[in-house]
């Protein structure tokens, strides 16, 4: 095909303009770091994903970054597509916030060696894939102190998601707290076998209330247990974020997440070019976990005691898993003078003395 003179001329002009545009683009140094977040649920779940999105907002306010989020991404093959897509679009730091993203993230991290990946709650790492989590057991212990003091029936209910070490560890830390303020109290565990089924969680809560529990705690992502407790005028300890609006008169407190500082840490590492496939497990001292404001029904003396314990934990002077700790059968699992190590915590599949319930064995 013969190209006219005007056509050729306009082609040259176009090419020239393109070159100018590219040349005048922002200097590489001032470029914002693009950070992508992949969530397993909706941001407004008032729980797990909400907490992560608060972290994303914190990051935007504290670093020169541009962030995006992809909500409600199912674990498995679907997530792989989302991670690949983000990596292709130039996101240099990609965060996945659910355990089930582990294998897809390992795969995508292998395909994009120049992109940094952070997997929350996983254990598989690579040069450009770090794993991160927080010691939520610390504030859980503190909520246990509150629950133990507030119970009158000495029966505390715990609505628990799945019998995995993360949840078992939380139940144990909570129970150790309960027994520290009330050695007569027991913690009754009901497994809902779901993370997120309000109907089932409500029913689990009801079953605990019917056996006389007057304080409920939970390791679930919906506020159904808090609502159920509030409907009966009983106290509740939440999880993930301050859920007091679901039981304004009965919400005691909750172990909560604050992912912001951790995300800032990783963003700074990527900017400095020092990102590594490390395992980050922070506690209250690094602010990633904490306890929600304690409700007005809790006596001031108890609040003071809990906050003193919190200070001791932050200073590293108190370890919730320090021995002597007995299991349900009275056998000493952690000897006096020693504390449970990280790897033993990651594999915890036994209940401490004071828990009523069983960890289903495979």
């Amino acid at each position, binding site marked *: 095909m013969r190209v006219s003179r005007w056509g050729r001329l306009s082609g040259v002009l176009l090419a020239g303009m393109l070159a100018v545009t590219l040349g005048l683009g922002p200097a590489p140094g001032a470029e914002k770091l693009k950070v992508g977040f992949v969530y397993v649920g909706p941001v407004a779940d008032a729980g797990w994903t909400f907490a992560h999105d608060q972290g994303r907002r914190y990051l935007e306010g504290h670093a020169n970054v541009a962030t995006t989020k992809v909500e409600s991404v199912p674990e498995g093959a679907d997530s792989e597509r989302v991670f690949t897509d983000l990596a292709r679009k130039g996101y240099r730091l990609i965060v996945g916030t659910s355990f089930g993203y582990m294998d897809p993230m390992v795969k995508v991290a292998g395909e994009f060696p120049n992109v940094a990946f952070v997997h929350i709650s996983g254990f598989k790492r690579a040069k450009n894939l770090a794993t991160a989590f927080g010691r939520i057991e610390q504030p859980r212990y503190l909520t246990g102190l509150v629950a133990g003091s507030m119970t009158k029936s000495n029966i505390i209910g715990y609505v628990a998601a799945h019998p995995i070490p993360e949840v078992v560890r939380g139940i144990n830390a909570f129970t150790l707290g309960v027994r520290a303020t009330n050695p007569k109290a027991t913690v009754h565990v009901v497994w809902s076998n*779901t993370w997120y089924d309000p109907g089932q969680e*409500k029913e689990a809560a009801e*079953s605990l209330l019917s056996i006389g529990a007057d304080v409920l705690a939970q390791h679930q992502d919906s506020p159904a247990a808090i609502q159920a407790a509030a409907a009966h005028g009983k106290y509740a300890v939440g999880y993930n974020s301050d859920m007091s609006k679901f039981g304004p008169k009965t919400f005691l407190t909750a172990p909560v997440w604050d992912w912001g500082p951790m995300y800032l840490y990783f963003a700074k590492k990527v900017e400095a070019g020092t990102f590594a496939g490390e395992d980050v497990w922070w506690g209250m001292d690094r602010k990633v976990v904490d306890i929600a404001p304690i409700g007005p029904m809790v006596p001031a003396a108890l609040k003071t005691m809990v906050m003193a314990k919190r200070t001791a934990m932050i200073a590293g002077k108190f370890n919730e898993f320090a021995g002597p700790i007995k299991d349900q059968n009275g056998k000493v699992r952690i000897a006096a003078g020693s504390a449970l190590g990280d790897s033993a915590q990651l594999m915890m599949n036994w209940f401490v003395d004071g828990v009523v319930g069983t960890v289903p064995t495979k």
Partner: protein
Amino acid sequence: MSPVTAAVLAAAVRAGTPVLFATLGEIFAERAGVLNLGVEGMMLASALAGFAVTARTSNPWIGAAAAAAAGGCLSVIHAFLSVTLRANQVASGLALTIFATGMSAFLGRGYVGVPGSGFQSAPIPLFAQIPVLGPVLFQQDPLVYLSYAAVPVAWYVLYRTRWGLEIRAVGEQPEAADAMGVDVARVRYACVIAGGVLAGLGGTFLSTAYTSMWIENMTAGRGWIALALVIFATWDPLRAVVGAYLFGGVNALQLHIQATGTSLPTYLLLMAPYVFTIVVLVIATQETARKRLGTPAALSVPYSRTG
């Protein structure tokens, strides 16, 4: 009776109610020969509709009406595809569920994590004082009482009215019904829509009575359980009650067993209703047993007069 036993039975009724509504609805659709796999989606969408309208009007009854309307409207899609266009009913129903799941998640964003209001427990005077049945049956919320009424009404309509005869005729022998002057398409539309309305009530029960919140996917498979219970109930509204409460009761029982700290393996218990469903399915495939169980002969077969 010990309070714990009463609590388990009351929980059985409570947990069974949403699936009971949906099962009754699906019985109507299937009795008319239309399999609707969109139950889960219709329940979800109407759970959102019920919650949203209740939140705006502060009146759960208006919310329930909106939920029933939402379920009904969605079911029209399935009726149009499977009755008018004679599309594959399995594909159409699945598409409806997938569509409604996504749509409710999208439209419901603003309502997630918002504390809602809804139906309160309303003990019926006098009845609530009956020793055993009182706390179990008559200290529930109004939607549960509505489900009590829906069961005999559904049974009466199906077995004791001319409409019911037409519905069953259309589900068994659409050609014969057509020859007798029954408008097959009209009956099927009506039944599918009735199914949608009832699924809608089940949905709104979840978001305004059982709990008062909306979150994505909160039906958590109850629509699929309803589909299994239709077979369990052998297409009979009275037996649907047994199935729904058994399903709710078994689950409540295993939670209570856990709460009391007894270490019984509860997995077998949880499987029981489904094992029975499989047994019914096996029997239902036998030609002689099929008639007695009530499987509609023309189930999931599109009808067209020309052949």
